[in-house]
């Protein structure tokens, strides 16, 4: 199954290291392949460096594409992280 969804990033400072790492961590146990597309660039969401290289700031809308047997739950959890706010040091 493949799901594609637009998601708004709510974290105050955008997708910097900690949110990116949180996404990578969630995906460790998932089978689906997950890609983020932002401003015509697409990266593998399992790659912290890949996500960082997109420089996604707060309120940016990114396209999340999930494909695989556990696509639904994967999409749900990834969306949750994107909606979550991380403590900013």
């Amino acid at each position, binding site marked *: 199954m493949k799901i594609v969804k637009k998601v708004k990033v*709510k974290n105050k*400072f*955008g997708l*910097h*290291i*900690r949110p*990116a*790492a949180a996404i*990578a*961590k969630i995906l460790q146990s998932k089978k689906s392949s997950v890609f983020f597309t932002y401003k015509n660039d697409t*990266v*593998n969401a*399992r*790659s*912290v*460096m*890949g996500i*960082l*290289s997109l*420089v996604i*700031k707060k309120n940016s809308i990114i396209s999340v594409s999930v494909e695989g047997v556990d696509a639904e739950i994967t999409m749900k959890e990834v969306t*949750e992280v994107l*909606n*979550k*706010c*991380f*403590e900013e*040091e």
Partner: protein
Amino acid sequence: MLRRRINKKQIILQGISISKGIAIGKPFFLFQKKNVPNQTLSEQEVLEEIERYRGALKKSKEDLKYLQRRFIKDGAFVVADILDAHLEILQDPVITELVEKNIRKTHKNTEVVFQQVIGEYKLSIKDKFFKERIKDITDVSWRVFSHLNPIKESLEVEKNCIIIANEINPSDVFEIKNKIVSAFITDKVGYSSHVGIIARAKGIPFIAKIDINLLNNVEIENLIVDGISGIVIINPTLKNLEKYKKLKINFFKFYVELKKQIDFLTKTKDGKDIKIFSTIESLKDVDFVFKYKTEGIGLFRSEYLFFQDRKIPSEKKQFYVYKEIAKKLKNKPFIIRLFDFGGDKDFLFKEKKDFFEINPMLGCRGIRYLIKNEDLLKIQLKAILKASIHGNIKILIPFVSNLSEISFVKDKIKEVMSELKDANIPCKKVLIGMMMEVPSAAIISNIFIKEVDFCSVGTNDLMQYIMAADRANNDVNVFFDSLDYSILKLLKEIVDNSNFYGKPLILCGEMMLNPKFIELLIGLGIRNISLSARQMLEIKYLIMKINASLAEKKVKKILTFLN
């Protein structure tokens, strides 16, 4: 920041002291940009090289996991979280694949390929804010590098050496042993950086803002780090060497002297009593009260109970902690601040999706949060009241900005007390105090003070809200280096009102940690302070050097002058 005085070969450089103390030793240059070996490999060597890369990754992961366990054990979950991010960077599948592919393709060694891959990513990020945030990557790649060349790193550092570097990573300082490294000198790094905090905790002298490049062509035989005045003396003269050897002994003696003070009551030079209380965060911290012989607990940051378990502590667990502390303290005061959530402590609610605020510092903080989450408040009050019979417990309400918040808590206390009575559980009436940290309360402190039994001034937040300046923001935190007239005037009013109505006042907060402020605070009439263990002795020492009546005159003069 630089003063160069050449006296034969002696060079004196002025920097900023990050951590006090004196060290004499040999230099050890630690450069982040080390000369990367550049080799071209044969087909056979390529396979070995990939194994070497995987091995370094594995060892780096083990390091991080080990460090993480230690931080978790110490309750430093935020640091553990940062290390979690480091782990994810290490495990980045795209990077690993790319590095291995490029080793195969270019026949170059790991160092060259790794640096190039990471470098490209770093280059692609042009945004200034993101650039600042990806500093961790340097830390991670450095760790991998050190495992690629393990021998050089650990053996070249001589005993008692002084580390000189452009920048130091927190993990380096954390892992360093005092016996091997006697001081740090860097170019970048600020006082409140993680590195600074760790160095101070470990008692390693540290001087920053020294232009390291100046030392490139200087042959350094030995050097002195004077962490008291922030000076580095390179190739010191015999005279200086003797002087500092003596100073070093004196500095040590000073600390021994400080320790002796524990037994004295804290009095100013002219005999005014100053009562020092302990600020604590956990059950085991209660030992500080006895170690430093303080009057009791002036502030128990109860929200740290969440921090330890990362979940809402049950009534049973809370009751146990409060009871144990109260019993240990016997009849010494034990002020429990109700859960102070929100603001900069919203990390506690990471798991709560619905807890999002655009401006948390002006959001649902302290008592506001508890009023919205009444169950939480009632559970806490129940645990406190049940523990009340075991000692001298007082309740402190955080972030009060409106009188109704005080009456809300009072009503809830009544409610819980009658519930306990119905259930035949004994409890005692407890005194109720408020945090004076929101301007709306501080400005009319006379009205608020009448409603409570005591009050506590939280200087951090009060200053932050009065100046409308975030102390974590480097562009505006200069406001915290000096005491603005507005704050001085407001504090004076609060102290006067507390005296007039006979309601004790305790000062909490980092303001005391700045020696410049201690005299002013004493001069304002502050007589009770609550401190965390770390700076206790030094502040006590400084207080005992102050003449309170002179300080009072000084403050009066300032206030009338500016009027």
